[in-house]
């Protein structure tokens, strides 16, 4: 077992890892930038080291400083949390060069899955469904027509150099293909000076479904059910739940099998997630990407499976046998997470750093709060705006939602604007309650 673990992160995830270490009896080292001196992760760790100024690139993103901090404190393992260096394969390699265990997948896996095109190719090769589309640039309308016919409408035409919706056209039938193709090319030319286009299957309001995985030595990969993260604002997840209201047992089986096969094919180690887009009308799903780290929303899965994923990460990295068998992983009940961010929904979700003057967490049955905030805490403007993850668990979805509603009513955060009012609106919305919300929900209903 490790002698001491350094947590190369801040905020709630640093605290989450410290909690796991404390429960395992492992000493911890917190690192912090000068602006995080008064943070809970610093107070709750056994030791702490200041690693740099507030700018992340000079502190939490600086591999050398983290390795040095581990060396001066005698830490023999580093948990990267999420964000910052969690998916940086150079950092993982540097750890291993210095005899420090990086608690995460092997650097090769991180490199492979970090390249989106390579990841898609790898998954496709082992039969994991990927979004059908052109292999590269589509030069002619005729080729586009053939491809679209093969893929099936609707399709989306995208500019290779694109972004921000420009040079992008959704085409719903063959009649509209030619004109849209030409318009997209013109738009791409004028916007990016590059008219290259490619074509992909277009999903109308898909669900974002992801599978929690854990890879262990001996090519063992375990799937811990799915999470439905369809409630997003500009690709930022806001609400996550498990199980998904639209995933049937049969579909779940297919999702788990695909995810396990995909992870096994790359010899995946540690905790990770494969994200899929699900067309809930047809039940077809498509590989989107793999996250080679623990995720913000992992507690949702912990609540419905009863397994402690962060402890498993640590124990597996230390070479301990978890004694897990596939039958051990069962989903029971329903869990939901609301991300409480310090941002102002009235002002287009602008992050709202500042001092939390009063704070009261909800409690009672079925409530879990993961937060580094406290009354008197100043949220620095340098990092993300997540101040608490509020989770509820119930015997079914309706109980979990009812609990979340009353917990949102109980929670008090003063001094900064938060996403609490928006969560209350979402949880009261008939479409969400019916389990029909897709990734388009916020734009469709929460104008």
């Amino acid at each position: 077992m490790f002698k001491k673990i350094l947590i190369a992160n801040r905020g709630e995830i640093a605290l989450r890892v410290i909690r796991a270490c404390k429960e395992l009896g492992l000493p911890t080292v917190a690192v912090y930038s000068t602006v995080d001196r008064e943070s809970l992760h610093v107070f709750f760790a056994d030791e702490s080291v200041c690693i740099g100024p507030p700018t992340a690139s000079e502190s939490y993103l600086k591999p050398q400083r983290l390795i040095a901090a581990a060396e001066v404190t005698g830490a023999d393992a580093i948990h990267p949390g999420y964000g910052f260096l969690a998916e940086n394969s150079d950092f993982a390699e540097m750890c291993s060069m210095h005899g420090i265990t990086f608690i995460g997948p092997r650097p090769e896996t991180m490199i492979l899955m970090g390249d989106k095109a390579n990841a898609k190719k790898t998954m496709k090769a082992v039969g994991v469904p990927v979004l059908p589309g052109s292999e590269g640039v589509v030069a002619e309308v005729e080729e586009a027509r053939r491809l679209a016919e093969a893929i099936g409408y609707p399709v989306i035409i995208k500019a290779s150099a694109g972004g921000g919706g420009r040079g992008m056209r959704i085409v719903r039938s063959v009649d509209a293909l030619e004109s849209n193709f030409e318009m997209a090319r013109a738009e791409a030319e004028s916007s990016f000076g590059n008219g290259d286009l490619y074509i992909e299957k277009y999903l109308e309001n898909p669900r974002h479904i992801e599978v929690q995985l854990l890879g262990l030595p001996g090519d063992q990969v375990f799937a811990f059910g799915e999470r439905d993260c369809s409630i997003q604002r500009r690709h930022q997840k806001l609400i996550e739940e498990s199980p998904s209201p639209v995933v049937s047992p049969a579909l779940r089986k297919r999702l788990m099998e695909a995810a396990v096969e995909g992870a096994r094919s790359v010899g995946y180690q540690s905790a990770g997630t494969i994200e899929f887009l699900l067309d809930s009308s047809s039940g077809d799903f498509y590989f989107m990407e793999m996250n080679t780290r623990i995720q913000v929303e992992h507690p949702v899965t912990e609540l419905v499976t009863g397994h402690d994923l962060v402890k498993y990460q640590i124990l597996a990295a230390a070479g301990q046998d978890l004694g897990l068998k596939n039958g051990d992983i069962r989903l029971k009940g329903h869990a939901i997470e609301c991300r409480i961010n310090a941002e102002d929904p009235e002002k287009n979700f602008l992050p709202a750093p500042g001092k939390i003057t009063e704070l009261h967490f909800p409690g009672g049955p079925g409530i879990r709060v993961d937060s580094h905030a406290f009354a008197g805490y100043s949220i620095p403007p340098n990092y993300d705006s997540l101040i608490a993850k509020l989770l509820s668990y119930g015997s079914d979805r309706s109980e979990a939602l009812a609990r979340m509603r009353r917990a949102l009513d109980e929670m008090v955060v003063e001094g900064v604007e938060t996403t609490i009012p928006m969560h209350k609106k979402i949880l009261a919305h008939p479409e969400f309650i019916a389990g029909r919300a897709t990734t388009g929900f916020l734009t469709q209903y929460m104008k």
Partner: protein
Amino acid sequence: MLDYNEIKKLVRLLENSQINEIEINDRGRKIRLTKSAPGNGQQMGMMLPAGFYHGSAPAAPAPSAPEAAAAAAPAAGRNTRQVKSPMVGTFYTSPSPDADPYVQVGDMVHKGQVLCIVEAMKLMNEIESEFAGRIVEVLVENAQPVEFDQPLFTLEVTG
């Protein structure tokens, strides 16, 4: 009541004063701040009965936040400045175990003169003085770990 910022204000107050100790008893809450006698190398300590800023944080074996903050206070006298560590690492007073220290208390140093080494990831980083002056205090012992921004030397600035 006594929140962290108020304590911080007290720390600053004490730092910038000629007195050595503040003790407050406020309806069941107690705080005592002690400043070391000028130049004797002791550090300021804080005592709080409970709460985040002491009670619930176990004493950190590595240089902890309060210590660093305390060391950041001028050791007294006017015109003193501190040389701080630009990185996390191990502090060495001399280039090798057998060699003499780069500098000692009382030495005059010029701007750019090497004062010590901070080793990080097997690399020896020479730390140069940012200004000319006389070494008043060496704040860290040889071969001890230092963190970012931790004061290493107090200099009395000349000229």
